[in-house]
């Protein structure tokens, strides 16, 4: 029969030492990693397998919506004026829904800061009281077409970028990035934080708004595609993206700004913040993935997000349901003087980039930040390669030079995650667990298994 007549080629799953004999005999072999499935309910896997063709068709449709998306920066506005459902007493936050009582330190700090910034409380003490009073409502950014990094706090007067998916017509919103150090998104709320937010509202926002209006729109998708070729993965590294954005916006800022001094201050601010582009890459991802919502029978993820307490996911085919589990503490490189003991569990909507095939999924494109994954460029490549195992397809636009311009792994399939045990790989910044301290490190983590197990089991139970 065939086996004896063909060249023996072995896939070894389990004990790696078994490859030695094969290697010595000149037989080609590959070691395949094995991880236990996330769910012990084998009947559900069988049910998913029975429906595989249908699910695949649905996922193809959902993935097509993501790949066809044409996200462009089309304007700016105040949250209260443009974000759907925004109200004066509403605060939007990162991740799945959470009450004040369960919020982590940095998110509480950011809420306190936002209440002071809005003039709803005169100091931190008053803000904390108000925050806990029940008079302030909290809802996820994701439920308002928004995304926010880290604490992800959006309040009524905050200016937001407006990103339009010109293919499907939907919109996504994100605030302007404050930079590093003591900033609201890491839970800082001191006077300098509020002062910066006010400057961003009164100076940065009008200047950028006028500049964007004079340009009409800025194509973010091709900007991200270029940034990947320049060493960004547009989550932990946004240096190229920020530079590209700067190049696009600078002439318009100078042209539209009434005072050269203001124009210089605005451009200096963007130039001085390597992460300025992050909020745009997040809004671009959000605009792309929201278009893929509501595809019946699709097991593709449209959201991965964390609120510093819980990690939550949403699927295209399961409507507005959140599947959550405890957020893990990232494995990170810490700034001097800090350690894992200081770290808050993972936080922020920025995992929307991974959901869109960027960030950790595109880390093979960002060799400059491989110290986050052990310092070895090959490790980064391997992380990206592993993600192809759990995705529905590959990007047609975002490509990785090192992989011969292969498209990034895009569209996480919860069934593949549950079955293979391979968890999405996420780049992330790390917040101090106490409000007001700010960022203490950056690194990577694998998403926790629980939300995926729950999402898979729920999804599979609805199958016939």
């Amino acid at each position: 029969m065939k086996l004896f007549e063909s060249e023996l080629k072995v896939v070894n799953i389990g004990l790696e030492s078994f490859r030695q004999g094969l290697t010595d005999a000149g037989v080609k072999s590959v070691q395949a990693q094995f991880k236990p499935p996330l769910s012990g309910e084998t009947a559900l896997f069988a049910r998913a397998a029975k429906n595989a063709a249908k699910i695949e068709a649905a996922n193809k449709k959902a993935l097509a919506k993501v790949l066809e998306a044409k996200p462009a920066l089309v304007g700016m506005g105040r949250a209260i004026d443009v974000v759907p459902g925004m109200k004066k007493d509403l605060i939007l936050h990162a991740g799945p829904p959470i009450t004040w009582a369960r919020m982590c330190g940095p998110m509480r700090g950011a809420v306190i800061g936002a209440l002071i910034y809005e003039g709803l409380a005169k100091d931190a003490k008053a803000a904390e009281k108000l925050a806990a009073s029940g008079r302030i409502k909290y809802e996820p950014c994701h439920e308002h077409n928004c995304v926010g990094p880290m604490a992800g706090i959006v309040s009524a007067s905050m200016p937001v970028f407006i990103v339009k998916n010109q293919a499907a017509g939907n919109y996504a919103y994100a605030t302007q990035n404050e930079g590093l150090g003591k900033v609201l998104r890491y839970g800082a709320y001191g006077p300098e934080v509020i002062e910066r937010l006010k400057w961003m509202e009164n100076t940065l926002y009008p200047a950028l708004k006028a500049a964007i209006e004079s340009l009409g729109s800025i194509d973010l998708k091709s900007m991200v595609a270029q940034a990947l070729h320049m060493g960004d993965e547009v989550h932990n590294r946004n240096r190229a993206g920020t530079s590209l954005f700067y190049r696009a916006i600078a002439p318009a800022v100078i042209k539209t700004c009434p005072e050269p001094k203001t124009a210089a201050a605005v451009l200096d601010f963007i130039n001085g913040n390597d992460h300025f582009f992050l909020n745009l890459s997040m809004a671009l991802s959000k605009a792309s993935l929201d278009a893929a919502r509501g595809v019946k029978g699709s097991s593709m993820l449209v959201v991965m997000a964390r609120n510093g307490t819980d990690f939550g996911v949403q699927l295209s085919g399961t409507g507005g349901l959140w599947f959550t589990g405890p957020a893990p503490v990232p494995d990170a490189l810490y700034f001097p003087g800090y350690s894992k003991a200081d770290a808050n569990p993972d936080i922020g909507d920025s995992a929307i980039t991974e959901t869109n095939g960027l960030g950790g999924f595109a880390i093979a494109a960002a060799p400059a930040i491989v110290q986050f994954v052990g310092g070895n460029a090959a490790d980064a490549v391997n992380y990206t390669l592993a993600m192809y195992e759990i995705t529905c397809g590959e990007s047609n636009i975002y490509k990785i030079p090192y992989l011969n311009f292969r498209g990034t792994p895009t569209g996480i399939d919860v069934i593949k995650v549950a079955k293979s045990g391979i968890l999405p790989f996420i780049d992330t910044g790390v917040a101090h667990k106490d409000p007001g301290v700010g960022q203490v490190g950056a690194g990577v983590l694998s998403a926790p298994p629980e939300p995926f197990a729950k999402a898979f089991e729920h999804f599979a139970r609805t199958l016939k």
Partner: protein
Amino acid sequence: MIKTVIKKGAYFDSVSLMQVAKRLNTMEGVLDSAVVMATRENKGIIKASGLLTPEVEAAGDSDLAIAVSAKTPAAAEAAFKAADELLNKKPAQSAGASDRKAAGLDDAIKMLDGANLAVISVAGRFAGPLAAECLEKNMNVMLFSDNVPLETELALKKAAQKKGLLVMGPDCGTAIINGAPIAFANAVSRGNIGVVAASGTGLQEVTVLISNEGAGISQAIGTGGRDVKLDIGAITLIQGLKMLAADPATEVILIVSKPPHEAVLKKILAEVKKIKKPVVAVLLGGEIKDKVKPDFYAAKTLEEAAYKAVCLGKGREIAKAREIIYDTNLKAAELAKKEAARKKKSRCLRGLFSGGTFVSEAQVILPELVGELRSNAPLDKKYKLANSLELSGHAVIDLGEDEFTVGRPHPMIDFSLRNKMIVSEARKPEVSVLLLDVVLGYGANLKPLEDITPAITEAFIRNRELSIVASVTGTETDPQVRSKVVKGLEAAGVLVMPSNAAACRLAGAIIKLGSRK
């Protein structure tokens, strides 16, 4: 003091974990340790050692539990640190993208175009579904994993049969496909003898004897021990026979098995009858009375089967097989005389084996020489040892039985338990002969001499009249190199024979000659 560390959601295969535990136990100040996935079964296992702390009890299936019993907190901390390092150790060569691990099965198949064999050694509860997936992807499967349910085995084998694929196992330790040793196998010469074996050590022994006798192996297919049970009906064994019958490179076929179910044996022999090539069969502890066909040859021992196959393979008369055995017997008789002369009186024989099939073979050969022989794996239930740890009279034990291997690597890899027993048996004045097997090859202990010699030296110090007889299952091209191991053992005072059967006969003869005094 007992200290515990739980690592949530960190999966490691049990062999890696046992290797870590083994290392921790050698650390100073560490009395005992358990490094296990916190499954219910594992909790049960470590309960006995007193390492089941409340933290371990509370941990779940997907959590890694490290429990250390240590003299000081510092020793426990050092053990945890060492465990961390061992578990996260990266391979020596930088894993470049070209030699990277595949993230999963699909990835592996993409990396290795035309992959046609999957070797699976993950925990039994995951092995079945994984094997099914490999079959779906048109790969043959060797299932090293044990603890796979019988109905899963049947379903896998039926699915494979439909697609013309082979499922070797579960609990299949060895095979040689297209010249390549798979899992626990030896580096043997290629040749015209094809083997199908429902016994792992049996397959190793016959392929080694054939190769060392100057003949060679075309293919050696393992079936897993349960294949010849009524429930499975020898699906793989019969598929293997058909494949070897059709294989132009195979001119002689050799079947190795424990006695199959009667109905299954009938099926096997019906298949043998159709084969237009000479067939040799050994059913250890069983007999084939049927003549089957003119060029069918039954054998009683692995040795006889191997040498008969060699004669057929080389076109010699089958009777020559006896001559090969006769030659080794001449040498054995002389040695036996010398050894018996050293003793006041020969009394008990104790066989400490790492290979299960050798225990069966010993029970076929020894009773004729020494009389009643007990075992923890008896061919006849009548001779079951009451307590495997308290040997009495003449006894042979299989250290690869579950009672010894739970929470410990297989005795072919980890000699520590047998080493302890070599010394403790030697201390008993009634013990005159120790009978051992040393199995070489891929997968087996890579430093057998280094590991076994101290125990042997100690044994001879404790018992000046003791004889130690051993066989070494291996070839010159095995990573351990047979002649080096033989020389080392002989230097330590061990009488080394070319086969397990010959070693059994020598050990038996020493007892027989010495007991007449």
